[in-house]
């Protein structure tokens, strides 16, 4: 039997945007097992819920993640609204969909850039970030923040987008779509990229399902799960095709994200066409008393906010389950049997967001 050695990977590693530590058990150059550990950036967000009033906690919930911040805020608001039986105006629900989908696009573009960087394609990384900047510009013009939008509140949204601005956004989407098409063509057609990603980090459909993969990690293995299909918010009024890929390797996960960019563009177009006029928020009175599991689809998968109130201004418990946490067991399975040189690419292929995971 070959001698086994342990190589530490992370928490500081050039390819990792955030700190996760993996102990890689190697036999020669082959990884036989990976032992993950987290706990480098715990910030105690969930405890803070006892110290801040429930309307102010939206700002904190939003700051859980620096990429999918809007969806965190919106999910928390959904939970409180369910507990308090609030009817959110339809225009606010459509605006939430528009901002959520812009968030998804900027998250996927950021991931594609980082992924290109992980397999050594620096130009593509720059290119993805250039397109992402255009989406961030739209975010800043409509909400005032580039990555922390702060536009969601309990009972609606804090800002309205004028119909003229919505038309302008609709027009801009055409040129953004063209640029994204050029970018994704490189990812999906270029032979050197295919060669690097095909058959790397394979995850079977059964493993993906049983190990609890979510989001593009699950869909890249052919498991058709997308919470948007449950029709929360205004998603029930919009039509879209669920993107899956049967490859189950890094290329499959990349293809799912590339195609989801177009789904997001399509969803924004539909939302802009269907958005009704009317108020964007309602007056909220009273305090939440009860508990609720609010779920939403994040760029990385299924997000769960558990909220419990006891009839005071301060909530008793908040628990955030993020998609990266459920994607770590599938990651360990992907790593088993791979080459050491493929580890950075495989780790990035689940789009790890450790700051979310540890809160």
């Amino acid at each position, binding site marked *: 039997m070959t001698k086994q050695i342990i190589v530490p990977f992370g928490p500081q590693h050039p390819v990792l945007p955030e700190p996760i530590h993996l102990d890689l058990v190697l036999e020669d150059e082959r990884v036989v097992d990976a032992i993950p550990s987290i706990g480098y950036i715990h910030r105690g967000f969930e405890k803070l819920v006892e110290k801040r009033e429930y309307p*102010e906690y939206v700002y904190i919930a939003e700051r859980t993640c620096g990429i999918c911040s809007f969806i965190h805020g919106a999910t928390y608001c959904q939970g409180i609204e369910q507990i308090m039986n609030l009817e959110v105006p339809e225009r606010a629900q459509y605006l939430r969909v528009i901002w959520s989908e812009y968030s998804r696009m900027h998250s996927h573009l950021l991931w594609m850039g980082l992924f290109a960087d992980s397999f050594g394609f620096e130009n593509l990384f720059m*290119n993805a970030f250039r397109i992402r900047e255009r989406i961030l*510009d739209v975010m800043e013009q409509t909400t*005032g*923040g580039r990555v922390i939008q*702060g536009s969601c509140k309990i009972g609606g949204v804090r800002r309205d987008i004028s119909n003229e601005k919505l038309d302008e956004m609709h027009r801009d989407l055409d040129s953004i779509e063209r640029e994204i098409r050029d*970018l994704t063509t*490189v990812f999906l057609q270029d032979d050197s990229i295919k060669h690097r990603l095909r058959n790397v980090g394979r995850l079977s459909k059964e493993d993906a399902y049983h190990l609890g993969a979510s989001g593009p990690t699950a869909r890249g293995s052919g498991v058709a799960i997308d919470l948007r299909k449950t029709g929360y918010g205004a998603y029930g009024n919009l039509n879209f095709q669920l993107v899956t890929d049967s490859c189950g390797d890094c290329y499959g996960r990349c293809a799912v994200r590339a195609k989801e960019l177009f789904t997001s563009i399509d969803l924004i177009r539909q939302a802009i066409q269907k958005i009704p006029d009317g108020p964007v928020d309602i007056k909220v009175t009273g305090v939440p008393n009860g508990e609720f599991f609010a779920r939403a689809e994040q760029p990385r998968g299924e997000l769960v906010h558990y909220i419990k109130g006891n009839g005071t201004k301060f909530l008793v418990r908040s628990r955030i389950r993020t998609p990266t946490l459920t994607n770590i067991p599938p990651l360990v399975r992907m790593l088993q049997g791979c080459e050491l040189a493929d580890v950075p690419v495989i780790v990035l292929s689940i789009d790890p967001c450790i700051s979310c995971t540890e809160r």
Partner: protein
Amino acid sequence: MAYFEMTKTAIKTLLSTPATILYPAQPAKKTALSRGHVTIDESRCISCGTCQRKCPSQAIVVSREAKTWQIDRLRCVVCNSCVDTCPVKCLFMDTQYSSPVIARSVELIAITYVKPVKPEKKDEASA
């Protein structure tokens, strides 16, 4: 074989202007809604302390006795909560970011608001 998929983008990039700007020679992009830093009109503040209570990062301290409004710029997360909830609308969001500092300090602003004196009705009645 698809080896030169990037060529189209490369040529386009070569013929277009750079995507980046020469900051600080050129000013950074700002929009009308951009959240930079909070400013106060001290002549209108009634020292009610709503901004202090509604601040999620506890960056604002309002003293009714000393008539001061104090903000810790490094604690402030620029969420716009105080601006939204101020009852007399004396807080504003400036689009420029607060300037960099080398030591932690708080910004102390003296409130100059003077409560208008109500005319005494009793005297008028007696007169």
